[in-house]
């Protein structure tokens, strides 16, 4: 593929990105690019640097070296919050949720943040509850099988994962980075969760990068796979050709 031909479709370009923690080369010279609307899975063994890569793109960590170009703009010193406003939204490997709120309240908090109304302290939240926001919350809950009135602290492990994703979608991201949205749930639920995520992403035309451990899930849902090990990308392409790579077989664990 001739890369320069598709430039206007280019969403993210990562160039020779590095993140060292003392002697640990967590991300060590990674380059790739993502086009609008792509669905990409990042796989690799524990400690491969997957989360660190997500942390760099989302701005939680600043790189030791290298470039991140998003929609043609270089992100080096852009803060995490600024990146969220630019459309780069992430979830965390271990979901951290708002335990004192209900599902609906959490989603509304997120939507108010998106609409830049979150710092208003004189107006009742109900004053912002226009039809379209209520409908948005209802739709998100429907898409991710959540009950609006349920307190967050009563959610099951699977529901927590789903709320985490729903919160990310409520920001209407351009680029969504999900760090292991299916970890810690049953294998059956895994398929379900990814299914819901990709369905909403397709509908909203969101570009998605998912870190995923389950090889069957990856095979079923993701047309493009980035395989990482020891901070480097060893493979970037479709699942079928990945299985043909003799040199990677031992890392994939059969």
């Amino acid at each position, binding site marked *: 593929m001739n890369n320069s031909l598709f430039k206007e479709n280019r969403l993210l370009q990562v160039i020779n990105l590095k993140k060292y923690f003392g002697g640990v080369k967590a991300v060590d010279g990674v380059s790739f690019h993502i086009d609008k609307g792509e669905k990409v899975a990042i796989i690799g063994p524990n400690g491969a640097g997957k989360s660190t890569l997500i942390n760099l793109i989302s701005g939680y960590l600043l790189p030791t070296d290298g470039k991140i170009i998003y929609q043609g703009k270089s992100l080096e010193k852009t803060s995490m919050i600024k990146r969220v406003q630019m459309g780069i939204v*992430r979830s965390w490997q271990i979901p*951290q*949720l708002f335990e004192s*709120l209900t599902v609906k309240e959490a989603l509304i*908090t997120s939507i108010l943040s998106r609409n830049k109304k*979150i710092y*208003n*302290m*004189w107006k009742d939240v109900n004053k912002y509850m226009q039809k379209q926001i209520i409908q948005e919350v209802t739709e998100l809950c429907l898409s991710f099988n959540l009950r609006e009135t349920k307190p967050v602290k009563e959610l099951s492990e699977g529901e927590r994962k789903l709320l985490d994703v729903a919160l990310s979608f409520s920001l209407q991201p351009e680029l969504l980075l999900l760090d292991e949205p299916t970890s810690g749930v049953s294998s059956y639920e895994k398929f379900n969760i990814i299914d819901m995520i990709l369905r909403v992403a397709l509908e909203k035309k969101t570009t998605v990068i998912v870190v995923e451990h389950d090889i069957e899930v990856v095979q079923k849902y993701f047309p493009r796979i980035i395989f990482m090990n020891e901070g480097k990308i060893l493979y970037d392409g479709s699942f079928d050709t990945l299985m043909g790579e003799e040199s990677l077989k031992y890392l994939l664990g059969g």
Partner: protein
Amino acid sequence: MVKTAYKCLIIYACLLLFGFIATRHIQHLLSLSLLYSLVAIGLVILIGYGGLVSFGQGAFYAIGAYSVGLLLKYYGFQNAEILLVLGVLITTLISFLIGLLAARTRKLAFAMITVAFSMIIYTLLVKFYHITGGTDGLRIPAVKLFGILPVRGRDLFMSMSNEYFIIITIFTIILYITEHVINSPLSYALRAVKDAELKAVSLGISPTRVYILAFTYAGFLAGIAGTLYAFLNAHIDPLIAFWTTSGEFVFITILGGITSIYGVFLASILYLFLKTYLIVYTAYYWQFVIGFVILLLILLAPKGLSGIIFKVYIGRKVFRKS
């Protein structure tokens, strides 16, 4: 919203009615309780919703009070309303500036910054005695509100004192405003930041900005209370800036159940009446009794007064059903 307005009106009516029948001494105690409630309501927002424990509210209370005292003494402002507005403005501005610094810290570091701040204010008030009157404090003459109503006296209907009337009126207004703040987007942001700061950031919410606003609002409330305290008490001294006063505010907030503004309203009344009468009857033991109450509270009712009331209420409901 209408419900909130009714709730506040009912409270106001009760307080007014009480003013007609209560003795002047009780009115004074109740007025002081309401001032303590105002400070504690600020702490409900800061501790209960935001998870930050401030031991510096006494300093803001003192700044409000001393703004009035010093403006009166050196600039000769005679209008209570101007003194009130300036006192609150000064306190709010200072709490915003301290907030800029404190909002970057959490937990123990935050508590220490606020303690340090109150120690600084206390020391300034004591050491610059040629300006502040030192430990002797300042006398506050009974200036007039809107040129007609002296801030202290008995110019109103029956036994109601002017200071009581002024304080319950302002208290009710603040209660109404705070109900809005508690249901505002910022309040949700505060809870979000308290529960999961990093998640809040990944939703585009700036914890620093959220905490600065909450801290400033708590300072604003302490400022109002302090300003009114100067009018009520006729005399102010640096002890109100000492960290023990801040400790009392924190205690009342915990006693009330940290997330309930009505809980701390009751807790302030309970605390000040207990303290006043315990000092009379058991001169040296009241602190022991207060300590004992804290212990009982932590062991038996970690959610404070509002928790107890809630339990009794729910308990009765369940009981009736069966």
